[in-house]
């Protein structure tokens, strides 16, 4: 009959109209300022600087090596290196950033600064409410505003933070241990490598790149940085959700 389709459609919309008052599950809207949609752990928005210990400025992991500033595609990071050095978390004298600014309006949240950082000093935050009342100074985030504790990092990205902490602990243990001979130093990064290669196939190429740059008598920080960067790579690939790898699930359950 002519018009029966119209009536069927009207019945359907009437059911939706009344149903939305009866059944709250029908309404998919998240009323944003009051409600927030559940955040997925891998979400990221804007970088922040990680610090250890109670004092934000003293505990910054950043050694102002300028790698992130150089790698940043839109050039939104501005670093000024200190002339003096102060002991870092390991106790080694390191330079620190006098100024570390990131321009919110320029940052494109690409995470490249995080990927290139050899010291795990810069990580991605999840705070997306980056509004400011002024176009100029307020959008330039300073070192003080960017510094956030490692506990906060654990809170927002538990799995990733646990992996990073494990890496750092291993590196510190290695740094604390006496390094008498090149054989020992070369063997140390090599020992975890086979296991990780066995765990996840994409990591198989990582150990050769990590192991060679370990000259034992080099300048104080260089080998450590190289080792760390190599291990950070493998750690991130391990932490990334690869369902066929047997080990990461155990790690995830432990961290969660």
């Amino acid at each position, binding site marked *: 009959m002519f018009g029966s389709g119209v009536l069927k459609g009207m019945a*359907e919309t009437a059911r939706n109209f009344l149903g939305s008052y009866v059944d709250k599950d029908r*309404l998919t809207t998240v009323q944003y300022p009051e409600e927030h949609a559940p955040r997925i752990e891998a979400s990221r928005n804007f970088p922040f600087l990680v610090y250890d210990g109670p004092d934000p400025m003293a505990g910054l992991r950043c050694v102002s090596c300028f790698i992130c500033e150089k790698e940043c595609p839109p050039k939104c990071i501005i670093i000024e290196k200190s002339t003096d050095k102060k002991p870092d978390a390991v106790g080694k004298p390191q330079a620190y950033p006098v100024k570390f600014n990131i321009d919110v309006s320029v940052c494109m949240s690409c995470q490249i600064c995080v990927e290139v950082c050899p010291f795990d000093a810069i990580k991605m935050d999840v705070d997306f409410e980056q509004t400011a009342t002024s176009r100029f100074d307020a959008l330039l985030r300073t070192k003080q505003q960017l510094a956030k504790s490692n506990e906060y990092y654990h809170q927002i990205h538990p799995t990733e933070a646990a992996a990073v902490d494990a890496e750092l602990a291993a590196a510190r243990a290695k740094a604390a241990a006496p390094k008498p001979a090149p054989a020992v130093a070369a063997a140390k990064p090599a020992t975890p490598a086979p296991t990780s290669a066995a765990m996840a196939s994409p990591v198989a190429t990582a150990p050769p790149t990590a192991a060679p740059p370990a000259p034992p008598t080099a300048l104080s920080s260089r080998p450590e940085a190289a080792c760390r960067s190599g291990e950070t790579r493998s750690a991130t690939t391990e932490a990334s959700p690869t369902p066929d790898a047997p080990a990461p699930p155990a790690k995830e359950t432990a961290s969660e």
Partner: protein
Amino acid sequence: MTTPDTIDQIFVITKHWLLGYVPAPLQPIASAILSVLPVMGVFPLLFAITTVLERKGLGRIQNRYGPNRVGPAGFWQPAADGIKSLTKEDVVPRNADQIVHFLAPIVLVIASFIVYAVLPIGRNMVITDLNSGLLYFFAVGSMVELSVFMAGWSSHSKYSLLGAMRATAQMISYEIPLVLAAVVVIMATGSLSTVTIVNAQTGYTMGFPHWFVFTPWGFAGFILFMIAATAESNRSPFDLPEGESEIIAGYYIEYSGFKFALFFLGEYLGMFATSGLAITLFLGGWAAPFSFLTWIPSYFWFFAKLLVIIGVFIWVRGTLPRLRQDQLMGFAWKFMLPMTLLNVFVAAAWHFLPTGIIRWAVCTALLVIPFIVFSMGLKQNKKLQVRTYRFAE
């Protein structure tokens, strides 16, 4: 005068009381102003309420909340919209015909307002009781087409012109079924006066009203009138003239700020006016639906019926997708026009047949059988196939 009567006539009494303070030579113009001002206040207010109700209703149909931020449950939204459209820049295209471009929304709003002159809002509540009220309504209602074409032509934009062309074609095509659907009521009452038409429907039999919608020709006439009214007011599913997806906003694409708001206002006022006319013609105007409810003031019933019809308009808008231009025209000329013409004959048959069950059966059959034949015919002509396109080389 009893208390319900006093409440029913409160506005009329107030007007006469106020007129008593006006010197005699000025009384005609004062009377006109006192009649017009409430209409000019109430219907834009209804427009404001309708916009927020429409947005909330459409939202609920789509399982959303709709506006719920400004004021309690979002009911100050129209005020926010009004402030926004007032403070927006009024952009006029450089190539536009400045005068016509400026006049078009004004003509639309004026045309939409002056049809209310013959609309009986309550008992004794009509601005003028013209004895050719219906004719006046349809004649003035045609001014809307003029303003729409003014807007489309003066904007000097292809989308505006396409929208205006579509709107004019659609409005002229649907004006014929609109008027023909109203003709049956004129045949039944023998009058063009809207007040006489409402008075003809105020009786009750066993508590039930004598509305024309409760007759076969009245029911068919009401449905056909409402379909034509939807097309006349450019509302979904007949909103091709302002189809956002293909011609952006049709004839008012080049309008911004308060002129755009005036177009919106004019459109809604036109919708209220045609709905009000449908109420006057078929739903008994300000008459109560049952005889035991006559103590409720007449204007309350008018606005209650109007809100119900607006609700159905919103409901239809939330349900039906937009028609194609050929479907629109085909529907007007192949279905609406024959059905309204047939309905005129049915009304004549109703008038000449003796009262009783036979009259009901004959008139219903005269309407239902052609309707089924029409729908079968339309179904047979429907060819579902992969479309082939030809392009210019």
